[in-house]
């Protein structure tokens, strides 16, 4: 840290300005994510939207057009006269909710399985590796389609269907960490002192998985949000009363020639979110990940 400060002091002003600019640029993803989180949490309190209520007098309005009720549809309306901006706000909530739940479920399950298999090795480890081989033979989205499509439509089913494959990367990464940590001196020391295996796992091995798991969680969050939107786009998983970006994009497909904004804008919102998480995930992986992922 000190080295980099002294180095930047002797650098010419142009370079310094450039690194300062880059530092600001690297913070943009945080700002974008904060906005999405704020919209997801507070948006529905400020914006009123009922997906079942239709307003045929105001259908297919352009962004910025005036509603017959006197308001303004800032991002236009869809084929049933429903406001696109409100759909973006409520869709953000759905995406964030499903994304966070799925990542939490799969991180907990994956870490528990991975750490246990990596620490104890033996037959447990073999079973895990073969189980992962089997799951990896299915494209993740296909497995999610089959699982989500087989059950009643609900948020819980979608979370379950997405977690069915999302836990794998957590298990792999934490298994690797546990494999290397179990050979370290303090684990040996604890073992010799007669510390129970459960406590060794929790106190001496588990903490070392935190960094990689956080880095992975951001990347998985992006994948999960994309997969959820994909499922909703295909009309599988979420009940029709839920608002989802994927669903709005699918609804807009038939009006593409006349109303591009119905499909276009939710896709932009989704892409911006995924790009931001991707950049953030890369930063986190560079900081915590790779070195310990072996």
């Amino acid at each position: 840290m000190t080295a980099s400060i002294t180095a930047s002091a002797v650098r010419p002003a142009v370079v310094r300005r450039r690194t300062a600019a880059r530092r600001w640029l690297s913070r943009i993803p945080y700002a974008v994510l904060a906005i999405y989180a704020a919209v997801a949490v507070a948006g529905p309190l400020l914006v009123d939207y009922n997906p079942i209520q239709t307003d045929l007098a105001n259908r297919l309005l352009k962004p910025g057009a005036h509603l017959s009720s006197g308001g303004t549809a800032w991002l236009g309306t869809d084929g049933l006269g429903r406001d696109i901006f409100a759909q973006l706000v409520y869709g953000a909530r759905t995406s964030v909710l499903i994304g966070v739940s799925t990542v939490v479920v799969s991180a907990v399950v994956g870490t528990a399985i991975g750490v246990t298999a990596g620490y104890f090795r033996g037959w447990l480890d073999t079973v895990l590796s073969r189980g992962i081989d089997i799951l990896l033979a299915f494209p993740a989205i296909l497995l999610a389609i089959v699982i989500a499509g087989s059950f009643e439509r609900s948020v819980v089913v979608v979370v379950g269907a997405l977690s069915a494959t999302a836990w794998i990367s957590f298990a792999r990464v934490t298994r690797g960490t546990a494999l290397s940590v179990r050979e370290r001196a303090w684990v040996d020391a604890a073992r010799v002192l007669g510390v129970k295996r459960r406590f060794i796992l929790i106190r001496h091995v588990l903490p070392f998985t935190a960094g990689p798991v956080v880095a992975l969680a951001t990347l998985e969050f992006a994948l999960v949000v994309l997969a959820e939107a994909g499922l909703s786009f295909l009309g599988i998983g979420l009940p029709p009363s839920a608002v989802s970006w994927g669903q709005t994009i699918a609804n807009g497909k038939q009006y593409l020639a006349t109303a591009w904004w119905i499909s276009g804008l939710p896709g932009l919102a989704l892409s911006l979110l995924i790009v931001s998480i991707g950049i953030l995930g890369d930063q986190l992986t560079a900081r915590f990940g790779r070195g310990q992922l072996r």
Partner: protein
Amino acid sequence: MIRVVVKRLLVGVLVMWGAASLIFVIVRVAPGDPATLMLGPDAPPDQVRELTATLGLDRPMPLQYLSYLGDVVQLRFGDSYLFNRPAMAEVFERMPATAELMLASTTIAVIAGLALGLLAGGRPGGLLDRVVSGGTIALQSFPTFWTGIMLILIFALALRVLPSAGTGTPAHLVLPAITLALPFTATVARLTRTSVAETMHEQYIRTARSKGLTERQVLLGHALRNSLIPVVTIIGLHMGGLMGGAVVVENVFAWPGVGTLVVESVANRDYTVVQAATFLVAGIVMAFNLAADLVYSQLDPRIRMESAA
């Protein structure tokens, strides 16, 4: 070598058994009785009972499982109630369209990805490198179903140069293939870039330059060669992702492949087709992973030596 192949094949058989079992579990755990689904909710109870017996669904679970495994080995998944014919026959009929789409996408992704990766990796840190690196992050982030719709908007509706959906002419293939190829192109480009950038530090690149070869000769003749190995592997390993992408992209463009079939069957609860298609896809993905493993070890003598030892 033969030993390695045999070992991998055995693991493959194990994976397929697991895949078949997983499909069995999902379908059995799912709510809804297949006989009622086939006959409709208004069917008389004795008819439902009769069909349940014909389908063998009244037998104990372990027996059902064993006879299911016996059928799977012969690729028999029962008749589709939607199409009134063996489910596997329906899946096989849709396979060529999916294969065509995937082949076209892979070709586009490999050529475009290699070119972009070479341009970016040839001069790490350069302007082109930064543009390509930034662009590939974006390409990997855009949801394919959305890029597909945007491409329809631009090329089919605004410019009117390509058809928006369906099949028949080569022109119909262009938009779906590009849509499916975009994220994969980014993957190949990033991989090639890293690999080329690393190779540029090698001694033999310096030798090539000092011989007076042009930069293009150095890149194509020396740097690219070594970068091909990871690319070949990633093609095999990405078959799963590509298959999953195809499921979504086919639905955007109404492409009559396995992907549209799966979504149709799931929506109509035509479980025999869902099982057949899922099993076949798993088999194909596994075969490609296996092939990637073997080709990889053949391409790189260093790994060949290691596995022989």
